[in-house]
């Protein structure tokens, strides 16, 4: 993460650049140094430095303030910290007026400078997060968010477009992680309700009474702690869409209440005696087979037919394996940029592993698997071995089988595993392996583990 915040140190004294650079590198920053204002500008043209430490007094050529102003011209976002000695503090204050973010008097306490750097970078991080969130907020959900070349998914997308402008209730069925909420959002945001609220309620997450007040709101004094009147999700969604996720999990009482809302678009707040009328489109989703639930007597038949006006059944990821490469590429780009990791692609061999896997957790599982691989990946491309743990989980025998490798390789793997188990403690690893420390490093050397 810190790699994303490059730092520049500008000082005419070599020893200052060298020592300050070394100190900041220990903290994980990418640090460049420049021995003059002119050199600093050349570097700043090529790199967007988060922080520039600039010495106030640099004999010959540009001084600190000039350098600061020139850097700001090229990189207005860079934070400049002026380095000064006691004798020139007044000038440093002048520099602050000209746009320096801070000044520090050398020599300073290590804690002071460490806090200063982390304070400035924390602010920058917040600013960039803020920009990302704003961008996300402004972003409309579109059908293009659904990535597919599967014919059945294509039909589903066409159907969502056709029904987007209607008020008819939609029931989306599919296993967990197949993208039910994404489809619901696509319906809402591509229809004439797009400018109005899209409210999500996860029905399985709340108890019956909590869900009731969550959906319908409550009047002041309806129960202990109800100090004011509170609007429920149905009222909040007025004019827009309410997305009732995991609808198969609601209690018989709520099924009856919901049926009434579906029929009349009216309801009472909890503890209230005045009817509230709303214009809300309902999209419900479930991973259960509701017709089976109806037959078993756990779900009201009349509610089922009210919900099931337009039915969308999302296929599991294993039923649309041709989408795995597309989705994988999408997640690699998306997640690596969100995490600030330099991972640009995924190898053909790795894709093979992903296509072969059955994905019980569907697209959400694929997304999580890619994220885990990006976090642990050491190259710019995700490879087969970045997913080796997935294959292991997928169906290798539980019994310990001796892999088909040489005795030497077996020994090498045992050493690596012991070191990993002991988090790098060589003494403990060699004890666990039953060998002494010098034998361990002899073996490491023999297997060319350590060069």
């Amino acid at each position, binding site marked *: 993460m*810190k790699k994303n915040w490059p730092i520049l140190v500008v000082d005419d*004294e070599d*020893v*200052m650049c*060298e*020592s*300050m650079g*070394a*100190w900041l*590198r*220990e*903290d*994980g920053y990418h640090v460049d140094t420049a021995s003059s204002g002119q050199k600093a500008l050349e570097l700043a043209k090529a790199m967007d430095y988060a922080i520039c430490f600039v010495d106030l007094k640099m004999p010959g050529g540009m001084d600190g303030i000039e350098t600061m102003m020139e850097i700001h011209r090229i990189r207005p976002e860079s934070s400049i910290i002026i*380095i000064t000695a006691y004798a020139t503090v007044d000038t440093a204050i002048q520099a602050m007026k000209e746009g320096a973010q801070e000044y520090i008097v*050398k*020599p*300073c*306490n*290590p*804690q002071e*400078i*460490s806090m200063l750097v982390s304070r400035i970078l924390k602010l920058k991080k917040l600013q960039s997060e803020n920009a990302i969130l704003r961008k996300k907020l402004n972003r409309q959900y579109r059908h293009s968010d659904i990535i597919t070349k599967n014919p059945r998914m294509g039909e589903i997308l066409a159907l969502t477009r056709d029904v987007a402008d209607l008020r008819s209730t939609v029931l989306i069925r599919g296993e967990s992680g197949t993208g039910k909420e994404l489809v619901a959002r696509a319906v809402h945001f591509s229809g004439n309700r797009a400018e109005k609220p899209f409210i999500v309620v996860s029905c399985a997450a709340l108890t019956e009474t909590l869900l009731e007040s969550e959906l319908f709101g409550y009047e002041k004094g309806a129960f202990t702690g109800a100090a004011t009147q509170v609007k429920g999700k149905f009222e909040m969604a007025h004019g827009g869409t309410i997305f009732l996720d995991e609808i198969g999990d609601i209690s018989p009482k709520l099924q009856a209440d919901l049926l009434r809302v579906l029929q009349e678009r009216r309801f009472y707040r909890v503890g209230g005696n005045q009817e509230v009328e709303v214009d809300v489109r309902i999209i419900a989703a479930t991973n259960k087979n509701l017709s089976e639930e109806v037959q078993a007597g756990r779900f009201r038949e009349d509610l089922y037919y009210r919900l099931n006006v337009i039915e969308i059944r999302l296929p599991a990821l294993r039923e649309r394996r041709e989408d795995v490469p597309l989705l994988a590429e999408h997640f690699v780009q998306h997640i690596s940029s969100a995490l600030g990791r330099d991972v640009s692609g995924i190898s053909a061999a790795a894709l093979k592993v992903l296509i072969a896997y059955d994905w019980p957790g569907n697209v959400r599982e694929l997304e999580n698997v890619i994220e885990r691989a990006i976090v642990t990946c*050491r190259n710019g491309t995700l490879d087969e071995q970045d997913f080796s743990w997935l294959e292991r989980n997928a169906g290798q025998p539980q019994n310990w089988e001796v892999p088909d490798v040489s005795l030497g390789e077996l020994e090498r793997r045992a*050493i*690596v595993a012991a*070191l*990993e188990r*002991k*988090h*790098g*403690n*060589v*003494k403990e690893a060699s004890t666990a392996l039953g060998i002494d*420390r*010098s034998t*361990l*490093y002899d073996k*490491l*050397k023999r297997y*060319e*583990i*350590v*060069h």
Partner: protein
Amino acid sequence: MNDLCIVAIGSLPARALDWIEDAAAEWFPLPIRRLAPLSIPEGAYDAKRKQYQSVEMMRMLAQHAPRDASRVLAVTDVDLAIPMLSFLFGQAQFDGPIAIVSLCRLHQEFYGLPPEENLLRERAVKEVLHELGHTFGLVHCAETACAMSLATHIELVDAKAEQYCARCGMQLVQRFTSREATV
């Protein structure tokens, strides 16, 4: 495989090098070798600050490093500083061969307290693990109990354990066991 060399600059407390050698042996799978002690380079002394410039010390170490050394860890009892900072517990070349640790501010006497040998040993071990960690590519760790956390005053040194956290430890394992990596 090249050696991890330990060298004293100037005189040290009696058993300091033994503590440091034991700590290095516990964590680094390299043969450990002690070099003949070096005298403090005259040019490193900053009379105005009554401290020694760490950069000068490290330059001298680079000159004296044996060719076959993988790492050279110097230990000194004098107070270290760089122009920007009022003091340093130690310094290392990030992912490079040279590191230095000063015991000066690890003594209880520095803070006007009676000497405590065991506390000095603990602090020295923590700082040695810290600086050697840098030479093997570890950066500062947010875990205050990890040897790699940044200590800017003595209380923060005391808050560390004499070991790396699991994450930093695993990074070292990768470093020592990956065929691509070079120690």
